[in-house]
C-alpha cells in the first residue's frame, strides 16, 4: 500500500510517500520514515489520521502495534498520515533518574558538609536526631523512586521531550535544596518526640502503601504491551482512582509533620497540585473509556485522588 506522510500544514514530509506491504504495521511505517528522513527516529514521530472536515475532537493517534490496514480509508489501499515531530526525546527512565538523583545527592550535602558557613553561620552545629532521621527518610524516598523507575514502572510511551529534563530537574533539585537548607539548618527547631514519631510513622506506612500501588499498576500492563488502559483494582484503588498519588501526598505529609518546615509544606502543596492535575486527567480518561457501552465495563464510582475532597 502507499502511505503519504504530510505535515500539519500539508507539506509532504517524505517526498513521493512510502510503499509498504499490505500487512505492514505502524511500527514498520515509523522505521521507513526514519530511514527516509534520517533524523526523525520513531520515538520522535507522532502520527495521526487527518482530521475529518466537519468532525471535531482529538485526532486519532496511530498505535505502534496496530496494522496499517486498520487505518486505511475503506477499500482504498492507501493511507495519508499526518506527521508531527515531537522533538528530541529521552527515555522516561533517563529523565526520572536525573530528576531524582539531584535531591538524593543535594540533601546529604546540606547534612554532612559545612555549607552553612557560607551563609554566615560559623561555629559548631548541633544535629538533632530528627534531622538525621529526616535525611535517611528523604534519601530513601528518592532512592526508592529511582529503583521503581528501573524495575517497577511500565511506561506507556517510553520517551519524553528533552526539554523536560531541564524543567523537571529544576523543579526537583531546587525544591530539594530548599527543603534541605531548612531541615539541616544550625538554628533548626525540632518538634516534640511524639510528633516526630507520628510523622515518620505515617510517612513509612504510606511509602510502603505507595510501593504496593506501583506494583498493582505494573501488573495492569504486560511487559510487551504498548500500554493502554485497564481499570485499576485492589487495595486502595477500589476507593480512589489515583491511589498511588494519594499515598505519595500523605507520605510527604508525614515527612512534614515530623520535620515542620514551611519549605516542606510549600513543596507538599505544589506537588499535590501537580498530582491532582494528573489525577483529574487520568480519572476522566478512564471514565470516558470505560463507559459501559460496546462491551466495555463501566468505570466504578470512585474518589479521584483525595477523599473526601476530590
Amino acid at each position: 500500500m502507499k502511505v503519504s506522510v504530510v505535515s500539519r500544514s500539508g507539506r509532504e514530509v517524505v517526498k513521493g510517500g512510502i510503499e509498504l506491504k499490505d500487512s505492514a504495521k505502524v511500527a514498520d511505517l515509523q522505521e521507513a520514515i526514519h530511514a527516509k528522513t534520517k533524523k526523525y527516529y520513531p520515538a520522535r514521530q507522532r502520527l495521526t489520521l487527518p482530521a475529518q472536515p466537519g468532525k471535531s475532537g482529538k485526532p486519532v493517534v496511530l498505535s505502534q502495534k496496530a496494522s496499517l490496514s486498520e487505518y486505511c480509508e475503506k477499500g482504498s489501499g492507501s493511507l495519508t498520515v499526518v506527521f508531527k515531530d515531537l522533538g528530541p526525546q529521552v527515555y522516561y527512565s533517563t529523565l526520572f533518574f536525573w530528576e531524582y538523583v539531584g535531591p538524593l545527592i543535594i540533601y546529604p550535602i546540606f547534612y554532612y558538609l559545612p555549607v552553612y558557613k557560607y551563609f554566615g553561620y560559623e561555629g559548631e552545629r548541633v544535629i538533632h536526631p530528627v534531622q538525621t532521621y529526616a535525611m535517611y527518610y528523604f534519601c530513601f524516598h528518592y532512592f526508592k523512586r529511582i529503583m521503581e523507575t528501573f524495575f517497577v514502572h511500565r511506561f506507556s510511551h517510553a520517551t519524553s521531550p528533552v526539554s523536560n529534563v531541564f524543567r523537571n530537574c529544576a523543579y526537583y533539585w531546587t525544591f530539594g535544596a530548599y527543603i534541605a537548607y531548612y531541615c539541616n539548618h544550625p538554628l533548626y527547631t525540632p518538634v516534640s518526640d511524639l510528633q516526630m514519631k507520628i510523622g515518620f510513622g505515617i510517612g513509612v506506612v504510606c511509602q510502603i502503601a505507595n510501593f504496593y500501588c506501583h506494583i498493582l499498576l505494573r501488573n495492569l500492563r504486560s511487559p510487551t504491551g504498548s500500554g493502554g488502559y485497564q481499570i485499576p483494582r485492589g487495595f486502595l484503588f477500589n476507593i480512589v482512582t489515583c491511589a498511588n498519588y494519594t499515598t505519595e501526598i500523605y507520605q510527604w505529609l508525614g515527612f512534614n509533620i515530623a520535620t515542620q518546615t514551611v519549605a516542606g509544606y510549600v513543596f507538599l502543596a505544589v506537588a499535590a497540585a501537580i498530582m491532582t492535575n494528573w489525577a483529574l486527567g487520568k480519572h476522566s480518561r478512564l471514565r470516558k473509556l470505560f463507559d459501559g457501552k460496546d462491551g466495555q465495563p463501566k468505570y466504578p464510582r470512585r474518589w479521584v485522588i483525595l477523599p473526601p475532597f476530590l
Partner: protein
Amino acid sequence: MAAVKRAYLAVYNWAVFFGWAQVLYFAVDALLRSGHEGVYAAVERPLQLAQTAAVLEILHGLVGLVRSPVSATLPQIGSRLFVTWGILWSFPETRTHILVSSLVISWSITEIIRYSFFGTKELFGSAPSSLLWLRYSSFLVMYPTGISSEVGLIYIALQFIKASEKYCIRMPNKWNYSFDYFYASILVLLVYVPGSPHMY
C-alpha cells in the same frame, strides 16, 4: 445577565481610568510646580488606589468575566503592586528619585489608554481603531520606560532594604522558616530579565 456584566465592566474601567487620569494630572502638576522630588507625595493616594484596584482584574479573569488569562495578568499586577507597596510605600527614601516621575507617567499614560479602550468597548460595543492603534503604539515607548523605571527603583531601594530588617523573618522559629526581603528583591530583579520580553 450579559447587560449587568457589561455595566459592571464599564463602570469598573471608567472608574479606574479616572483614577489614573488623576495620577497623571497631579504628577505633571507637581513636576512643573515643585520638581520631581514632589511627584510621589502628590500622586500617592490615587496611585495606590488605582493600582490596587487592578487586583479585581485577576478575579475577573478567574471567574471568566473577561477573556484575559490569569497567567498573563498575575505577573503584571504582581510587579506593579511590588513596586507600589513593596518599594515606594515601604521605603520612603526612594520617593524623591526622578525615576518615580518616569514610572508614574509611563504607568498612567499606558493605563489611561488601556482603560478608556476597554471602557469604550463595554459601553459602545466596540472601540475605535484609532484607540487600538494608540494602545499598541504608545506601548512601544511606555513599556520600556515603565520597566526601566521599575527595575531602576528596585535597584535603588536595595541598599535601604538591606539596612532595614523590614519584612524579614529570621531563624530560629518553630516553623523553621526564614525570609530575606533583600534577596527576594534581587530575585525579582533577576526575573525581570527573562520576564520582560516574555510579558511584552
